[in-house]
């Protein structure tokens, strides 16, 4: 390309053109400025940018008198002609923009004389200057998009979500409408990452994003705030139901299994909803409130939604206090281990489940349901588990003279995934002198479903020492039973949920019966938890359930009470329930405070 003569009029024109066009903030204004300045520079009556077969912008014709087809033909070399009023003849010049985004050309038409070589060079230079400007704008736009979007899901990120929320709140105040924020947190997502790796986790997040987007309106904004946290902005909410409907749709959409790396997963989401109240709430307030409500869902029922209430702030403060106290509870020796007997068909005790309690300095004795969720969130659950194991093994050593008595201890997922898990269990046994054959490790199905080779190896190592395994809350977690092949278990515990409605013909009873038959066919002993009525016991006995646990027999009791119970048995198996007609509840008589079943 020939260069412009330095110091000529055209050099100054190009400098002016560049100064005006390059400061444009978007394509539209850049193109508008360019055709105006280009026309002025060479005294042209008509200036246009034609892009991909259409006139993008034009000056020189009155409104409604633009010869679109002729301009397109002229710009694309098909010889289109048009009239310039008052001009008998005119010259046309077309130059490509070379903007990479589309096939665009700058067209200029001037009445009278042809364009000189200098003018033609200037026009080409102006076209390329415009093209470069448009490319820069395009790049800036891409960069801006990248800065404001999550690359994995392509959802807006937190910054953009906050911005949109800010505007939505302002618009809501003007229009007198409300804005809802849904805070979504995937349940147990960490297990996916831990067991299948982060690549698989990313696939799940993308799949979740697609499903969430699929149930939203076009106008709703879905964002990924980070990790497994998503947020939805719903505008013009005229009732609480308008927001809860969205939550229900999302929960439903996530219910079907996710297939990743050839494996199927069930991923639920806990959702918190906060709705603007028309006051001067900031975006962070609304998101914070939704987060708080989500936490409520998380602690009360995974896979559910909760609408924010002001009282949650009070509970948040209580929770923070609780967490603070919990951190010092271990060092201060505030955890207590209690034991609930596991009995045979006639109330004969052949095992004890160790259950933790927290002797809170001001709130009194707290049951697991009152602090374990907080402990889980605070990362304290493993520490508490090890305290319980140590104490229970220590107590158990004092009862070993009692025949056939086993010790069941619950282990959390965060303990099993610790690399020194097996070593710590064995060390506890060694430290206390308890025979490994007396310990039954209780695990939930969720833990067993981790399908991790490292975990399998640790459990096998323990089994090699004679330690046995029980599946706690059987039937409440994953439905796959494949893990039973990888971890041959020694005991299945049927949760209270199924036992409570055993006398009915409802689905819980059907499931309980199925579990019993299933366990029987595999030769795995079962324990029915939460047995509280003679009627339930009668059904269980009829179905052949060999062992029970529950208030009908005994509440959780202190180690002292266990010692006394066993002493009364005089070396024979202790009995906490005598016959169908009556109940001899030794433990209850010795128990200082009422406690719930595990």
């Amino acid at each position, binding site marked *: 390309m020939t260069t412009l003569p330095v110091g000529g009029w055209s050099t*100054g024109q190009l400098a002016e053109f560049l*100064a005006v066009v390059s400061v444009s903030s978007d394509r539209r204004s850049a193109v508008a400025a360019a055709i105006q300045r280009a026309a002025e520079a060479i005294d042209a009556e008509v200036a246009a940018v034609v892009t991909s077969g259409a006139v993008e912008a034009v000056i020189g014709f009155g409104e409604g008198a633009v010869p679109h087809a002729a301009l397109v033909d002229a710009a694309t070399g098909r010889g289109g002609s048009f009239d310039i009023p*008052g001009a008998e003849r005119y010259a046309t010049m077309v130059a490509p923009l070379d903007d990479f985004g589309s096939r665009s050309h700058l067209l200029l038409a001037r009445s009278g004389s042809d364009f000189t070589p200098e003018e033609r060079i200037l026009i080409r230079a102006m076209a390329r200057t415009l093209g470069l400007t448009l490319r820069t704008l395009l790049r800036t736009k891409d960069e801006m998009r990248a800065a404001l979007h999550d690359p994995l899901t392509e959802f807006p990120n937190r910054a953009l979500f906050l911005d949109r929320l800010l505007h939505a709140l302002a618009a809501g105040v003007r229009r007198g409408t409300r804005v809802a924020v849904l805070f979504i947190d995937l349940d147990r997502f960490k297990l996916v990452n831990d067991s299948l790796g982060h690549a698989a986790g990313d696939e799940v997040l993308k799949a979740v994003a697609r499903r969430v987007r699929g149930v939203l309106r076009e106008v709703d904004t879905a964002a990924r705030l980070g990790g497994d946290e998503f947020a939805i902005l719903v505008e013009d909410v005229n009732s609480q139901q308008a927001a809860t409907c969205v939550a229900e749709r999302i929960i439903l959409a996530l219910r079907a299994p996710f297939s990743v790396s050839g494996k199927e997963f069930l991923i639920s989401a806990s959702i918190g909803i906060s709705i603007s109240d028309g006051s001067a709430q900031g975006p962070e307030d609304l998101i914070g409130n939704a987060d708080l409500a989500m936490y409520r869902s998380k602690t009360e029922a995974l896979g559910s939604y909760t609408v924010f209430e002001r009282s949650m702030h009070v509970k948040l403060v209580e929770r923070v206090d609780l967490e603070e106290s919990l951190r010092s509870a271990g060092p201060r020796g505030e955890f207590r281990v209690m034991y609930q007997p596991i009995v045979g068909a006639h109330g004969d005790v052949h095992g004890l489940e160790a259950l933790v309690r927290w002797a809170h300095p001001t709130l009194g004795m707290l049951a697991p349901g009152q602090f374990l969720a907080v402990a889980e969130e605070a990362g304290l659950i493993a520490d508490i588990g090890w305290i319980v194991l140590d104490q229970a093994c220590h107590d158990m050593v004092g009862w070993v003279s009692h025949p056939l008595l086993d010790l069941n201890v619950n282990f959390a997922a965060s303990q099993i995934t610790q690399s020194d898990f097996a070593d710590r269990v064995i060390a506890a046994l060694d430290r206390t002198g308890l025979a490994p054959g007396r310990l039954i490790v209780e695990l939930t199905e969720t833990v067993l479903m981790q399908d991790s080779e490292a975990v399998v190896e640790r459990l096998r190592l323990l089994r090699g020492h004679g330690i046995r395994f029980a599946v706690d809350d059987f039937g409440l977690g994953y439905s796959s039973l494949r893990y039973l092949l990888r971890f041959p278990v020694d005991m299945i515990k049927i949760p209270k949920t199924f036992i409570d409605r055993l006398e009915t013909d409802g689905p819980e009873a059907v499931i309980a019966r199925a579990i019993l038959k299933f366990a029987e066919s595999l030769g795995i002993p079962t324990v029915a938890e939460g047995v509280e009525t003679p009627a339930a016991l009668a059904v269980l006995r009829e179905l052949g359930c060999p062992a029970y646990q529950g208030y009908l027999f005994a509440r959780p009791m202190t180690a002292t009470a266990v010692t006394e119970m066993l002493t009364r048995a005089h070396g024979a198996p202790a009995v906490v329930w005598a016959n169908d007609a009556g109940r001899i509840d030794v433990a209850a008589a010795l128990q200082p405070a009422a406690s719930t079943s595990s």
Partner: protein
Amino acid sequence: MTVATIVSTRWLGVGSSAAVDASSAGRAAAVAAVGGKTAKLLIVFASSIYEPQALLDGIAEVTGGAPLIGCTTAGEIAATGPTDHGVVVVALGGEGFSARSASAVAVTGQLRDASAKVAECAQGLQGKHKALLLLSDGLGGNQEEVIRGAYSVVGAAVPLVGGCAGDDLKMQQTLQFHDRAVLRGAIVGAAISSDAPIGIGVRHGWRRVGEAMLVTSSNDNHVYLLDDKPALDTYLEKLDVRGDARTDPAAFTQFAITHPLGISRRSGEQVRFVAGANFDDRSLRCIANVPQGGLAWFMEGDESSVLEATDAACADAIAALGGREPIGFVAFDCIARRGVLGTTGIAQEVERISSHAQGAPVAGFYTYGEIARTRGTTGFHNQTLVVLALS
């Protein structure tokens, strides 16, 4: 053989008055302009000394509800000669003429939009020959935007003509008139269509002084650096300015009237009226945009060159009438040219314009900027004479 004689009924009347009382002046000028006929458009050029509302009311007493556009001036032009502190009324009427008027107050930075809004009055106007007459506030921002806005609506099909209102060189506040409304910072316009050609002539008559300079820093109308030196200092040095004009703003403006800036354009140069200087930051204030990065010159003129330009502008306007005789001239003459010509010179200039008009009425005013777009897309001028010839 029958010869059909087509008698033109189009007419243009001009009336002027230098009466002290605004109402009386308006009334007298209007009476003379309409001559008892019904006008289709009134164009009013009036000194800023008049109480504007009384002036318009006086005119309306004579012309009734005829559409009116107008503005204050830095001197008026009539066939009887140039005047100060007077009023000139132009009336258009007769078959073959039609006109529509409009106005818009230009919010700061929105000159283009305001001008486009005014230009909409030209849409749908029937007639073979058209022009859009625009009167704006030369003290109110970059007047090139006025051209751009109007052009975006009417395109190349309608020539633009007109000028920027004055205020008798006080450089403080100009007024625009639309019907009986007195406006500030506004653009008023009238789209005129005619069965007969409309001619426009444009000439300035200035010449370059010294070498070209690079505009190294400017923003819109403000020029900060020329060749990387403070613009005011460069101006004072290169033009060898002496006396009060070096330190006194009023004296400077008086000097600058006859020493404009020329900026490089394809056709040669475009003249920029230097309206004032900032003695603190040493910048120059022009009436229109002076683009950063462009080449510029200082310019000067003398009586001879200015009068030559007058002849040329009139001749160009006449030539565009296609052999028809003019029925009247409306001149938009920069106040700077008046500065060069002096009292005697402007009388000569008006005589020359009248002689080109071949006896047809002549009207006009001394402006703070001139508008004439007949070719290309640009059309804002400084230090220039624009002549509108109607036939």
